[in-house]
C-alpha cells in the first residue's frame, strides 16, 4: 500500500549504489591489474624530474623522473587489499567480541566496555605510528594495527545492537527451547545486525583508506622505492606547483575509492534497513 511512496527513495538508493559501483569499478580497474599493465617499470628513471606530460608519459614524470601513470597503476594494490583486510578483520573480531559481551553480560561485558573506552581515548593514528615505529612497517602489522584502531567502534556498535536484539522474544524462545549460545548468536542475533554492520564496514573502509594513505604520506606505510598512492603524495608535494599531476592523480584515486565504497555501503545499508522495516 505504501510502495508508491517508497519508490522514489528506493530508486535513489539504487542510483546511489550504481554510482558508487561505477566509481569503485573505475578505481579497481586501475588498481587491481595495474601492476601488470604499467607501460614502464614504476621505479625506472626515464624522464626529467617533474617533467611535464607528453608522449610516452601522459601524466608526466615525478620528482625522480619516474612515469606517474605507471606508478599510479602500480600503487593502488597495496592500499586496496590493506584497507579491505583491516576492515574485515575489525568487523569480524569486533562483531564477535561485541555480541558475546552483550550476550554474556556481567563482569566480562564490563571489562570489554572499559577496554574499549581506553582504546577510544587513544588517538588511532598515534597508536599505529607508535607501534610501527617500534616494530617496523610490515604490511600485515599495519593491517593488524589499523584493525585494532577500529575495533572499539565495532565492539560498541555490535554490543549495543545485540543488547536490543537479545531482548526480543524470538531470542527468549530459542533460549527456552535450549538452543546453544552459538546457534542463538549466529542464527538469531547476527542476521538481525547485518544492516548496522554493513554500514559500519563501509565507513571503516573509507577510514582505512584515509588512514593507510596518511601512514604512507607520513612515511610509516609502504617503504619508499615502492609505488603507493599515499607515498606518491608525500614524495611529490614539493613540486605541487611545477607538476601538479604527480600529487593530484593519487589524491583523486584515493578520493574516488573512498567515495565509491561509501556510496555502496550506505545504499546497501539503507535498503537493508527498509527490508527490516517492512518485516
Amino acid at each position, binding site marked *: 500500500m*505504501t510502495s*508508491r511512496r517508497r519508490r522514489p527513495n528506493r530508486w535513489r538508493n539504487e542510483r546511489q549504489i550504481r554510482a558508487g559501483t561505477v566509481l569503485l569499478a573505475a578505481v579497481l580497474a586501475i588498481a587491481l591489474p595495474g601492476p601488470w599493465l604499467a607501460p614502464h617499470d614504476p621505479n625506472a628513471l626515464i624522464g626529467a624530474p617533474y617533467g611535464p606530460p607528453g608522449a610516452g608519459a601522459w601524466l608526466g614524470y615525478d620528482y625522480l623522473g619516474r612515469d606517474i601513470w605507471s606508478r599510479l597503476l602500480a600503487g593502488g594494490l597495496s592500499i586496496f587489499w590493506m584497507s579491505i583486510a583491516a576492515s574485515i578483520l575489525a568487523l569480524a573480531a569486533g562483531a564477535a567480541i561485541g555480541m558475546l559481551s552483550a550476550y554474556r553480560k556481567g563482569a566480562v561485558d564490563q571489562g570489554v566496555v572499559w577496554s574499549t573506552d581506553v582504546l577510544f581515548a587513544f588517538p588511532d593514528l598515534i597508536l599505529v605510528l607508535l607501534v610501527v615505529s617500534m616494530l617496523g612497517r610490515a604490511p600485515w602489522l599495519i593491517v593488524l594495527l589499523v584493525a585494532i584502531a577500529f575495533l572499539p567502534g565495532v565492539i560498541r556498535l555490535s554490543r549495543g545492537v545485540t543488547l536490543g536484539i537479545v531482548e526480543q522474544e524470538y531470542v527468549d524462545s530459542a533460549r*527456552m*527451547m535450549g538452543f546453544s549460545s552459538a546457534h542463538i548468536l549466529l542464527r538469531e542475533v547476527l542476521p538481525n545486525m547485518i544492516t548496522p554492520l554493513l554500514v559500519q564496514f563501509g565507513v571503516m573502509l573509507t577510514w582505512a583508506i584515509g588512514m593507510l594513505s596518511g601512514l604512507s604520506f607520513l612515511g610509516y606505510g609502504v617503504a619508499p622505492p615502492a609505488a603507493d598512492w599515499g607515498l606518491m603524495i608525500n614524495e611529490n608535494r614539493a613540486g605541487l606547483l611545477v607538476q601538479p599531476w604527480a600529487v593530484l592523480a593519487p589524491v583523486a584515486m584515493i578520493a574516488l575509492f573512498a567515495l565509491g565504497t561509501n556510496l555502496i555501503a550506505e545504499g546497501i545499508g539503507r535498503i537493508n534497513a527498509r527490508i527490516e522495516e517492512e*518485516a
Partner: protein
Amino acid sequence: MPAASPALVVRDLRVDLAPRGAPIVADISLTLAPGEILGLVGESGSGKTTLANALLGYARRGTRITGGSVLVDGQDILALTDGERRAARGRLIAHVPQDPAMALNPLARIGGSLSETLAIHRRELPPAARAAAVAAALADVGLPNDPAFLRRYPHQLSGGQQQRVLLALAFILRPRVIVLDEPTTALDVITQAQVLDLIRGYCREQGVAAVYISHDLSVVQDLVDRAAVLYAGRLAEVADSRAIFAQPMHPYTRGLLGAMPGVDRRHALSHIPGHAPSPGQRPDGCAFAPRCARATDLCRATEPRLTEGVSGTFVACHHPLLQTPLERRTAQPSTPAPADRPALLTAAGIDAYYGANQVLFDVGFSVQARQCTAIVGQSGSGKTTLARALGGLGSAVTGELVIGGTPIGIGSSPRARDLRRRIQYIFQNPFRALNPRQNVADNLVAVVRHFFPVSAQEARERARAAIARVALPATVLDRRPGKLSGGERQRVAIARALLCEPEVLICDEITSALDVSVQAAVLDLLMRLKAEGLTILFVTHDLAVVRVIADHIIVLKDGRIVEQGEADAVLDRPAHAYTRRLIADSASAAELALAS
C-alpha cells in the same frame, strides 16, 4: 437528539493516501450533541486513527485530507489556516493519545506541562489565574494538585495517573469536543474502569462531546451513548449503544459481537473468516462482501450507502438484519478436574526476585492434563514472571517443578533437552516472537531438527503439517514474518510450539495484541488443540477470555495466589474481594443487563 446546536458535525470527510488517491477513510458523516459520547469502533487497519487525526485537521505524512468538513461549534476546522488550526486545537477540539508514557515529555514536570498549554493558548491569563486553572484541571481528573505533585515528572506517576494528566491537558482549555484515541488500551482493567468513569462524568457535567476510539467493543459498550462501526474506512453502522449491542444490523457488527467474549457467561465464539482489506486493496462494491455470508451479486457490484434502518439507526448494507435480535450460543461449561487423576504439572514454593524486590511469594499450584488453566492478574501481579519461570527463563527464581513425575529445573537452571521439549511457550507480542530474518519454513525446520533426529526432508514435511494444523495456507512457509498479519504470526508461533510435540503449552497473553475477531479464531484453535489432548496454561488479564477458554483459574495478586478453583465457579462465585473487583470491572453494565 437534543435540540441544542450540535457540538461536532462531520460531513463527507475523506482522507486519501497522498500520491495515488486510494481512500483510507471516506464518506464519514457524523453529528454529536454537546455532552454526547460517540464510540468509534474498528479493527486494526480500519482507519480509525486516521479519522481521529482528521477530526483535528491533521493528516499523517503520506496521507491527505481531500474532502469534507469538520464543524466544531459551527467553525470548520478544515477551512482554517495552519495558524488558526493550531489555535483551535485544544481550545475547540482536543486530543487524548493512546500511550500516556509516550505522550508526556519525560523531562517536563506535570505542572509545567499543564501551565505551558495555558501559556500558549491563553496568554492573557495572569499567573495566579493560570495556577488556579491548572489546579482545577487536576481536580477535574481526580489528581492531587499540591505543589509536590506539580513538581513530579511523568516517570514518577503510575500509568493511570499519566493518562489522567493527559486528560487534564485535554480538559484544561475547556474544548467543545474531545477525541480520545484508545486512551485505556495501555491500562489494566481496574485503572481502565476508573478512567472511563472519569471521562463519562466529565463529558456529562461539562457538556463536552467526545469521540471515543477503540478496538474494544466491551469498553465502548458502557461508556458511549452511540456507537459507530468502521470497516475498511467507511461507516458500516451507527446506532445508539443499546441497540447496536442488542440488535446489530450489519453482518460485520454481528461478526464482531459474535467474536467478543463476555465475562458473565460462557459463549461459543464465532469468528469472521478472512481479514480486513488494506487501503488500495479494497474490493468494488461492499468492502465486507468477501467475508460476508449474506453477500449477493448486488453487494459485490454496488457499494451500499449509509441509510436509516430501524428508527435512528443507520446501516450501510444491502441486506441488513432488521428484525433478528442478536443471539449468542452458550458453550459447554468448564470441566471440573477429575479427582482421581494425578496432576501433569506441579509447582511448589516458587519465589522470584526482581533486583532486591520479591515478585513471587511461595507460589504453588498443579495443572491437570488436557485442561486449560488460566493464570489471572493485573500488570505487576507477577504472572509473566511465573510463566517465564515455568517455561525456563529467569535468573532469580527458586522453587520446585515436576512434570509427569519428573523434576524439572525452574527458571534458567539447566534442563534436559527432552524436558524443554515438553513445555512450550507462546509469547504475547507476535511481532517480536519470530526472527524477522528467517522465513517461516526455516524458523520451523530449525526447531524440528533441534529436538528430533530427522532428515531435512522429514523436518520440512512436519513443518508443512504443523502449518496446516493451525489452519494456515502452505504459502506462508516461504514468507518472512514481516509479510504476515499479527494473527498469522501468532498461528506460526503456535505451529512452532506444536512441532516440539509438547505436553504443556504456556500462552502468555497471546491474544492481547490481536483484534477481537482474530482473537476468537486463535482461541478456537487453542480449544481444538486442547480437545486433541494438549494441556494449556493461559496467562492473561482478560477475564472474558478466561471465561471462554479456561477450566481452572488461578488468581495472582502482588505475587501471591489469592484464589483458585474451577473456572465457572470462581467467575460466578468469587470468594476473594480482589477477584470480585476484577470481575466487576471487566463486566460491562450492558452485559449485566442482558444477563438479567
